[in-house]
C-alpha cells in the first residue's frame, strides 16, 4: 500500500512539481498515471521511493513512513520497490548484464557484491529478465552500444530482476516498438496479477492505459485532476485531463499555428 498525505514538492528553482497530493494505492493495483508532459508524473513516481525529497507531507509504504525512514531501513524499503526510469539511467560503460545484476545488490552482503560475486541463481535471474525483454543476446555488450529501445529494455530487465513488491515504471515503453511494448506490458500485468505486485506506470498512450490499468490517475500541473477506475476514464475525461491545459494555452494564443 502506498499512501500520499498532503504531499507537495517544490524544486529548488521554484517550480512546483506536486501540489498537495492525497492518494491511496492498494496492494495489487495496476495504476496508470497520465498527464501532459511536464505535469509532474515523473516527480510523483520518484517521490514514492524518495529519489526526490518532498517539500511537505508524508508518504507511507505499507504503513511505514518512507519520508522518515533512514539508513538500512530506507534501503530495505527501496529494495522492495523496483523502478524503471524514463531516461534509463544505465551505467553506459558497464555491460548489460552488470547493469541488470546491479538490481540485485541489496540482497547480498557488501563484500560479495563489490567483488561481483553473485550467486549463479542471480545471474540466471538476470539473464531470464533480459530474455523476457528479448535482449539476452546482448548480455555482454557494453550498454552504450545499444539502440535506444534496447537500453530501455535493459532498464526494464533490471527492475524485473529486482523481484520487488512494488514496481514504478516511468514511461517504460516510450522507445519500444509495438511488439515489444505488448510483451513488456503483458509481463508487467502478469507479475501484477500473479504475484500481486503493486504497479504504478506513467504512460502517454490512452489505449494502452485503458487496456492494462485497473485505475487511472490524471495529473495536471502537479495536481490530481482525475482518479478513478478504468471504466470511468472516458474519452471525455481524458480530454479534460489534457484539454484543460490546451484551452488555457489557446487563450494565451499558442497552438494556433498547429491546426
Amino acid at each position, binding site marked *: 500500500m502506498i499512501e500520499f498525505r498532503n504531499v507537495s514538492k517544490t524544486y529548488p*528553482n*521554484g517550480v512546483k512539481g506536486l501540489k498537495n497530493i492525497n492518494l491511496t494505492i492498494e496492494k495489487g493495483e495496476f495504476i496508470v498515471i497520465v498527464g501532459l508532459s511536464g505535469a509532474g508524473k515523473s516527480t510523483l513516481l520518484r517521490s514514492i*521511493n524518495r*529519489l526526490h525529497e518532498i517539500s511537505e507531507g508524508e508518504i507511507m509504504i505499507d504503513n511505514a513512513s518512507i519520508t522518515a525512514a533512514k539508513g*538500512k531501513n530506507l*534501503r*530495505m*524499503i*527501496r*529494495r*522492495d*520497490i*523496483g*523502478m524503471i*526510469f524514463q*531516461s*534509463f*539511467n*544505465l*551505467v553506459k*560503460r*558497464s555491460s548489460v548484464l*552488470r547493469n541488470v545484476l*546491479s*538490481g*540485485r*545488490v*541489496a540482497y547480498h552482503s*557488501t563484500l560479495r*557484491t*563489490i567483488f561481483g560475486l553473485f550467486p549463479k541463481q542471480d545471474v540466471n535471474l538476470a539473464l531470464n529478465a533480459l530474455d523476457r525483454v528479448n535482449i539476452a543476446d546482448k548480455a555482454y555488450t557494453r550498454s552504450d552500444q545499444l539502440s535506444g529501445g534496447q537500453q530501455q529494455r535493459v*532498464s526494464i530487465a*533490471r527492475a524485473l530482476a*529486482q523481484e520487488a513488491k512494488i514496481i514504478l515504471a516511468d514511461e517504460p515503453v516510450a522507445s519500444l516498438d509495438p511488439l515489444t511494448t505488448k510483451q513488456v506490458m503483458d509481463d508487467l500485468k502478469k507479475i501484477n496479477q500473479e504475484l500481486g505486485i503493486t504497479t504504478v506506470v506513467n504512460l502517454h498512450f490512452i489505449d494502452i492505459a485503458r487496456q492494462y490499468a485497473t485505475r487511472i490517475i490524471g495529473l495536471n500541473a502537479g495536481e490530481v485532476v482525475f482518479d478513478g477506475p478504468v471504466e470511468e476514464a472516458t474519452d471525455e475525461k481524458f480530454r479534460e485531463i489534457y484539454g484543460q491545459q490546451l484551452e488555457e494555452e489557446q487563450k*494565451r*494564443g*499558442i497552438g*494556433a*499555428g498547429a491546426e
Partner: protein
Amino acid sequence: MSQLSTQTVAKPTGRGKRMFNRVLILVILAAIYIWAFAGVETFEIKETAGQISKAILNGIIQPDWDFVPGAEGLIYGLIDTLAISILGTFISAVLTIPFGFWAATRRDKSGFFVTGIGRFVLSFIRVFPEVVLAIIFIKAVGPGSFAGVLALGLHSIGMLGKLFAEEVEAIDHGPKEALIATGANRLQVLVYSVLPQVLPGFISYTLYRFELNVRGASILGIIGAGGIGAPLIFALQSRNWPRVGVILLGIILLVSLIDLISGYFRKKIV
C-alpha cells in the same frame, strides 16, 4: 510562423542578479590583475641572452653519450626512477580513492562538514613541502629509494585527491539514482554506478601523476634515492649541458613511452 505573443516567453529569471554577480566578478578580477601587473618591472632582453642560450642549446643537442651506460649512468638511473615512481604512484592511487570520495561534495546531503574536512586534509597534504616530507621519511627508513617511494606516495595524494574528488562530483547522477532505488547501500552505489563512471578519469589522473613522478627529479635528488634526480640537478648546477641533454632525452623518451601506453589504456577504457 506566427508572431510571438510576448507574454508567453518567460523573462529570464534572476537575470538582474546574475548580471550583478558577473559585473562584480569582473571588477574583482580587474582589480587583482591591476595589482599583479603593477608590481612587474620593465621588460628587457639582456645582451648576453643570445650567447648564453645558444651555448645552452648547443650543449643540449650534443648529448653526453658516455653517461648512458654504467651502474650510475642514465639507463640504470631511469630504471631506478621508474621503479620508485611505479611504487609511489601505486601507493598514492590506492590511498587516494577513499580521499577522493571523502572530499567530493555530496549533493544529496548537506555534508559540508564532512566534505570540508576531506578538502582540508588534501590541501594540507598539498602544501606540505616535499623536502620536509622527505626528511620525515629519511629519519624513519634512512636515505634511499624506499624513502623516495614513501615521500612520493604521500605527496601525490594531495594532488590526486583533489582531481579524483572533482571527477566524482562531475558524474551523471542517473545511474546513481538507479542504484539508490534498488536499495543498495553506499558502498554498493559507489561500486556499481560511480566507480565505472569515474574509473577512466581516475586512471588517467593516476597515469599523469605517474609521469609527473618520473620527471619530478627534485624530490628524488634530495632523498639520496638513486635514480636520475641527483645527476640531473648536479649537471644543471655545473652547467654541464651535454649531460643535461642526454638526461632530458632519456626522460623525454620514457615519458613519451608512458604517454603512449597510457593513451592506449585510456582509449580502451573511456
